């Protein structure tokens, strides 16, 4: 019972991840252009979320919730660092 549920979980994750891989590949191969890059980035972010949810089993419940908090915090700090660096050095570059 428990095992088949887990298998289900992985299967959903696999299907979602496949779809999110196929979409950008087809777009880049057939359409191209700026729009497809935007879609590509969105798919990449969604893909990361799918991996965390279905393969790393992050959720809102119990022990997993603490892990989720850490992942979100990591995301926040990375965002601050990367976006901040780009902003700071970009501003400097523009004024040089």
């Amino acid at each position, binding site marked *: 019972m428990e095992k088949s549920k887990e298998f289900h979980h992985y299967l959903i994750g696999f299907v979602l991840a496949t779809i999110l891989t196929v979409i950008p590949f087809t777009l880049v191969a057939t359409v191209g252009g700026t729009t497809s890059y935007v879609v590509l980035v969105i798919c990449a972010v969604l893909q990361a979320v799918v991996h965390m949810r279905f393969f790393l089993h992050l959720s809102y419940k119990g022990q997993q919730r603490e892990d989720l908090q850490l992942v979100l915090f990591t995301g926040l700090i990375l965002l*601050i660092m990367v976006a901040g660096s780009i902003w700071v050095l970009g501003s400097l570059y523009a004024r040089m």
Partner: protein
Amino acid sequence: MVDPLFGKLSWDSIILVQEIENPNLNLLITSGAAVMIPVGGVLLIALLWWLNWWKPLLGWLTSVDHKKIGAMYIIFAVVMLFRGVVEGTLMRVHQATALNGGFLSSDHFNQLFTTHGTNMIFFVAMPFLIGLINIVVPLQIGARDVAFPRLNQISLGLTGAGGFLITISLLIGEFATGGWTGYPSYNGKLINPGVGPDYWLISLGISGIGSTLTGVNFAVTIYKMRAKGMTFMRMPLFTWTALCTSILLIFAMPPLTACCVMLGLDRYLDFHFFTNDMGGNLMNFINLFWMFGHPEVYILILPAFGVMSEISPTFSAKRLYGYTGLVAATMCIAVVSFMVWLHHFFTMGQSATVNAAFGIATLLIGIPTGVKVYDWLATLWGGRIRFTTPMIYLIGFFFLFVIGGLSGVILANPTLDYQLHNSLFLVAHFHNVIIPGVLFGILAGIHYWFPKVFGFRLMESYGKITAVCWIIGFCLTFLPLYPLGMMGMTRRTVDYSDPAYVPLMMVSGAGALFLSLAFTFIVILFWRSIVNRKKLAIPMGDPWDGRTLEWWTPSPAPDWNFAILPEVHSRDPFTEAKKDGTAYQPIEKYEDIELPSTTYYGLIIGVLGCGLGFGLVWYIWWMALASFLGCVVTAMVYGFLPKKEIVIPAEEVRKVDEAWRAEARESQGVTRDDESTEANKGLARPDALPAV
């Protein structure tokens, strides 16, 4: 062309040889300091031989017990503090006499402020705090040890390796002259081809890895090993700050390691990350360095805040006021500390928008910090306050740290910063935050928790004198630097020509001597307390009427910390248990306790780390390579060896634990009025009048 066997190392690299060949005052001071290393080493070995302490020493060095590792961190930090204080005093005395040229050469002075800064931040403040966290956190959360005891030992070994490199630079070669922040391009190969910057970046790189590992270790410990029933909102405040510090360590140390590695690639392999030509951008070093450097400030201050949050309720016999607020403020500070790094380079040419954004973010940190100060004040209010040594530090902290914080708010304003940056005002500001904030917190914490590890209290009389010396010394040394900075005196000035600076410089120099006195009193304090340890013993483990779990075990705490792991139902579990009279009730069932056995892992990695660093600094490639391979092999061997555990039989635990509980039940205990007398054997008798 470097020698394949000795690299760049030659007889002339040794300071003592330089002194003999070409005697002068500057070299005399350096070699005087350098002589202390071999002489001290020989004396230490002789002492160990004479007292036959080899075995216990090795027992400590191979121990994975978090209390012992914490104590070793603190001993290491005290030794490094000695050097830092001497250097600081030398600089202040030099500057007091530096009108139209003092007695030190500019190169020597530059090395002094560089080592002083590097040493004080990385090898004094950090080991002090990590030592305290090591000692306290597992006890406070009711665990037997940290999550990864052997990793803990490795962290200590790597910190020791970094400390070895910065110390040996005094004897062999030179240290960097570019300040503790090590900015390129001044520290690049083109301008500084010597070994100084290499010493700087490699000692920081190695100890930085150790600190990252400590962060991982304690984040996991606090997340996964809390006692049953200890939810996040029941965690003692010190553990909260330790958690936030660990997380800061995990995220803040990698930028430092990265920029050390990049600068290393620039210097060793002619990369161009931070050069002026070939596409390098030295601003990125400064950007990366402060991405580490600013959270670092909060890595240092948060545990000190934690200590203050433990001391104020204990010594006023009250619940901590505004627990939730303090937790929220701690988390707030931890996050915002990552959003302010640009205030360290306001004047380097970003747009006004960028400066304003980071200025506002910096000002915002004042809010949670203010919340904390008010919470501690409110904790004291209406309590039954005892005027012990930690309380003196707390009071000094209240007044002086607030001044430091306010001058920080001034500096956070970009327009004012344009006037004040790189002046002595800035030096005054950060010493004003770090000494009353971090150092007072650490010293108060050592005074508070020392008995838990060693089983006896530190003497109150010397403790109070030490505290007062630190406070007076700090005020005399650093408060005059504020007006001097506003008068236009720049930092890192080896000499000056304006006689208007002299009177205040004199005051500051005299204050530095006071701080040296304070350090001397620390040594006397430890020495006198060790001599009187029988009278000061507190075998029952609760000398201050403590509130959290760490006091609920004998002193010195046994290897296994708790005979049975405690269960927690409130924020002050021990106070509740004492109130119910259940604190020392007998336990029916004891179980075997498994503890990790001693290991040479950390010691070997530490020694090989020294070899790796020394080889890299002096281009002795065979040494560096052999040490590095040695590290890899050691890691693999220890990775595959089966983990050994020591099992302590239930009977042995029962014997120790029952004796302690029985003694505590039969004893009278000591009232709070007699707390600092010999009557205090570590059992608190509740006050007749309950505090508010």
